[in-house]
C-alpha cells in the first residue's frame, strides 16, 4: 500500500491533528499572555512592585511555634522556612500516627471477633464522613480550648500537664553522654545491618534459620546501654513547672498542633483502615492454605506470604492518602497553627500584598511535597512489585 500524494486537506487526520494542536498551543499561550498582561496592568495601577525582594524585609510579628530560633526582626524568608518546617512536622507526625492507627483499625475490621469488628466499622464510617476541617475545629474549639487553664491543668504524674495552653512535657537537652550515645546507636544499627545480611546469607546457603529479631533487639539494647553505663546519661530532662499563670521549662505542644495532628490522624486513619482491609482481603485464601500446607506456622504465614502480597495492593492508594494528609495539613489555617498556608499565604500575604509571589511560592511548596512523597512511594512500590518470570 502506498499513500497517494495529496495536498493539505482537512479530511486528512494527520493534518487535522496538527491543526488542532497548533490551535491548542495558540489558545494556551494566548490565555497565558492575556492573564499576564492584565496582571501587569493591574499591578501597575495598584502600585505593587513584583519580585521577591520582600523576602529580605523584616517580618515584625511573633510566631507561636518555631522549630528554629526566630525573633520579630527576622526576615520573611525565615518566616517561610518556619512555616515550611511546621507543615513538614504536622505531615510527618500525622503520617506516622495515621499509619499505625489505620493498620490497627484495618486489621480489626477483619477480626473474627464480632465486637472488635463492629467497633472498627463504626469508627471508619463515623470519621471518614465528617469533613476534616470540622474535626479540626471541633478538637480545637470544643475540646482543647475548653480545658482548664494551667493552674487547673490535668496533671499526669507531675511530668505531663494538659491545659488550654497545650501539652507541657519534660524537655530534653544534651548531657555529657550525648555524643558517645549517638555513636553507640549508629554502631548498633550498623551491627544489626551486618547481622541481618549474614543471617540471610546463611539462611540462603544452609536453610538454617536465625533469630534475627531477638538478636537485633539485643544489639540495639546492649551497645547504647553500655555507652550509658560508661559515659553517663545522654540527655538531661527538665520538668515543666507552674510559675505564675503558665508553665516554665520543659517542652510544650501548642493546642493548635495537638488539635491538628489529632484530627488529621483520626480522619486519615479511617481511610487507611479501608485500604488495609481491602489489601489483605485481596490476597486469596488459597495463599494461606498453600502456606499452611508447606508447614509454615501462623506468624510466618502472615509475615512471609500474606503481608508482602497485600502490600502491593496497599501501597498505591496509601501513597495518595499520605498526599492527602500533606495537603490537608493546610487546613491549619482554620485554627491559626503557624504553617505554610496560615503563616505565609495568610499573614505574610496580608502584610506585604505580594499576592502572586506568595501564592506561587506556597503552591510550589505543596507541589514539591506531593512530588517527593509520590517519588518515594513509587520507588518503594517498584522495589516490592511482583517480578514475574
Amino acid at each position, binding site marked *: 500500500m502506498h499513500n497517494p500524494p495529496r495536498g493539505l486537506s482537512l479530511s486528512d487526520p494527520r493534518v487535522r491533528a496538527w491543526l488542532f494542536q497548533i490551535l491548542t498551543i495558540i489558545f494556551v499561550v494566548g490565555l497565558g499572555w492575556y492573564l499576564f498582561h492584565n496582571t501587569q496592568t493591574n499591578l501597575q495601577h495598584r502600585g505593587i512592585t513584583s519580585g521577591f525582594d520582600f523576602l529580605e524585609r523584616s517580618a515584625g510579628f511573633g510566631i507561636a511555634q518555631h522549630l528554629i530560633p526566630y525573633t520579630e526582626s527576622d526576615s520573611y524568608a525565615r518566616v517561610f522556612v518556619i512555616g515550611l518546617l511546621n507543615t513538614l512536622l504536622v505531615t510527618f507526625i500525622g503520617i506516622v500516627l495515621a499509619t499505625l492507627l489505620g493498620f490497627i483499625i484495618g486489621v480489626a475490621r477483619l477480626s473474627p*471477633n464480632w*465486637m472488635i469488628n463492629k467497633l472498627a466499622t463504626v469508627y471508619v464510617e463515623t470519621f471518614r464522613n*465528617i469533613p476534616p476541617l470540622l474535626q479540626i475545629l471541633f478538637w480545637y*474549639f470544643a475540646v482543647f480550648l475548653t480545658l482548664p487553664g494551667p493552674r487547673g491543668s490535668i496533671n499526669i504524674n507531675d511530668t505531663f500537664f494538659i491545659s488550654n495552653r497545650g501539652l507541657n512535657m519534660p524537655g530534653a537537652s544534651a548531657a555529657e553522654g550525648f555524643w558517645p550515645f549517638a555513636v553507640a546507636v549508629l554502631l548498633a544499627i550498623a551491627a544489626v545491618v551486618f547481622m541481618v545480611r549474614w543471617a540471610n546469607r546463611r539462611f540462603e546457603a544452609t536453610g538454617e534459620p536465625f533469630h534475627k529479631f531477638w538478636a537485633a533487639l539485643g544489639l540495639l539494647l546492649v551497645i547504647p546501654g553500655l555507652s550509658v553505663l560508661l559515659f553517663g546519661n545522654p540527655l538531661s530532662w527538665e520538668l515543666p513547672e507552674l510559675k505564675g499563670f503558665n508553665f516554665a521549662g520543659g517542652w510544650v505542644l501548642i493546642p493548635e498542633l495537638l488539635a491538628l495532628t489529632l484530627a488529621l490522624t483520626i480522619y486519615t486513619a479511617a481511610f487507611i483502615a479501608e485500604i488495609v482491609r481491602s489489601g489483605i482481603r485481596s490476597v486469596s485464601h488459597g495463599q494461606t492454605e498453600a502456606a499452611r500446607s508447606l508447614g509454615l506456622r501462623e506468624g510466618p504465614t502472615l509475615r512471609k506470604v500474606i503481608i508482602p502480597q497485600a502490600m502491593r495492593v496497599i501501597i498505591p492508594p496509601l501513597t495518595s492518602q499520605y498526599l492527602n494528609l500533606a495537603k490537608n495539613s*493546610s*487546613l491549619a489555617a482554620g485554627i491559626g497553627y503557624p504553617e505554610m498556608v496560615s503563616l505565609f499565604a495568610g499573614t505574610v500575604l496580608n502584610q506585604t500584598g505580594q499576592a502572586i509571589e506568595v*501564592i506561587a511560592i*506556597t503552591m510550589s511548596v505543596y507541589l514539591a511535597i506531593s512530588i517527593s512523597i509520590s517519588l518515594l512511594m513509587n520507588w518503594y512500590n517498584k522495589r516490592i512489585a511482583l517480578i514475574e518470570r
Partner: protein
Amino acid sequence: MSTHVFKPDMPPPVKTVGVVAWLRANLFSSWLNTLLTLFALYLVWLIVPPLLQWSIFDANWVGTTRADCTKEGACWVFIQQRFGQFMYGYYPTELRWRVDLTVWLAVIGAAPLFISRFPRKAVYGLCFLVAYPIIAYTLLHGGHFGMTTVPTSQWGGLMLTLVIATVGIVGALPLGILLALGRRSKMPAVKVVCVTFIEFWRGVPLITVLFMSSVMLPLFLPEGMSFDKLLRAMIGVILFQSAYIAEVVRGGLQAIPKGQYEAAAAMGLGYWRAMGLVILPQALKLVIPGIVNTFIALFKDTSLVIIIGLFDLLNSVKQAAADPKWLGMATEGYVFAALVFWIFCFGMSRYSMHLERKLDTGHKR
C-alpha cells in the same frame, strides 16, 4: 413382626446452636478473643453511656435562651434557636420559601432519574441538567418576575454548602471528561497541556486554590471587571475538582477494551462520534461510583470556603458559637454540623455502593 422404631434425633448440643454458639464463635473463641471482647466492651462502656447521658438524658430540649439550659448535658436549645441561620445563612426570613421551593424542585425533578423504568432517562436527565440550574438561580437570586434580589453575600448555611457542591460537580464533570480525553489523546501538545493541568491541580491543596481565586483572580481580570466572592470560589472549586474527575474518568476509559475503539473506527465513526456514542457511555457508566465518591469528597471540601469568609454551614456554626449570648456552645454546634455532614456523606456513600452492585452487570466470567 414389629418394625423398628427409630428414636427421635437428639437435639444438637447446646454449645453448637443459638445464642451460646454464636457467642462462642464470635466473641469467645480463644483466650485472645475473649480478652479483645472484654477490651471492646470496656471501650463501649467508656464511650457510650456518657455520650447518651450528655446528648439525650441530661440534654436541654426546650427554651429560648441560654439561661434555659440548666441541666448538665447538651444545650440543644442553641441549635433550635439558630436553626434558620444554619440552614439559610443570612437569607431574608420572609424569602426563605424560595430556597425551600428550589430544594423541592430538585427532589421532584431528580426523582425520575432514580426510577429504573423511566423512559428516555438520558434525554430527561440532560434537559433537567440544563433547565434546573437556570430555574434555581432565578429563584435563589431573584431580580426577575418581581422577585426581590437576594445578593449572594446573604446566602449561607447548608444552602450555600449545597449550592457550591452542586455547581462544583456539574461544572467539573464536562471539563473533567474533556481533560480525561485529552490526557489519553495521541496528540502530544494536547496531552502535555492536559497532564500539566491535571497534575498541577491535584498537587495543591484546595485551600491554596481558594486563596488564589480570592486574591489572584481579581488581578488576572481586565480592569473594572469583578466577580463576586461566591463566583470566584466556585471557579476555584470547579477547576480543582475537574482534575479529580478527569482521573476518575480516565480510569473508566482505560477499562474499555481496545476492541470497542477498533469497532467504532471500523464502523467509520470519527473521533468525537466514536467517543460520544461508543466509548463514553460505557466508560461513564463504569465510573459513576467513582464520581459519587468524588462528589462526597467535594461536599466535605466545601467547608473550606470558611477560609475566604463565605458563610457555609460550618462557618455559620462557628459564627453562632462565637456569639456572646451563646458562649460555650461550640460543642453542640460542631456536633450538629458534623451530624448534618455525616448524614449527607454516609447516605451518598451507601448510594454509591448500591450503584456499584447494580451497575455490575456481569462482564465477569
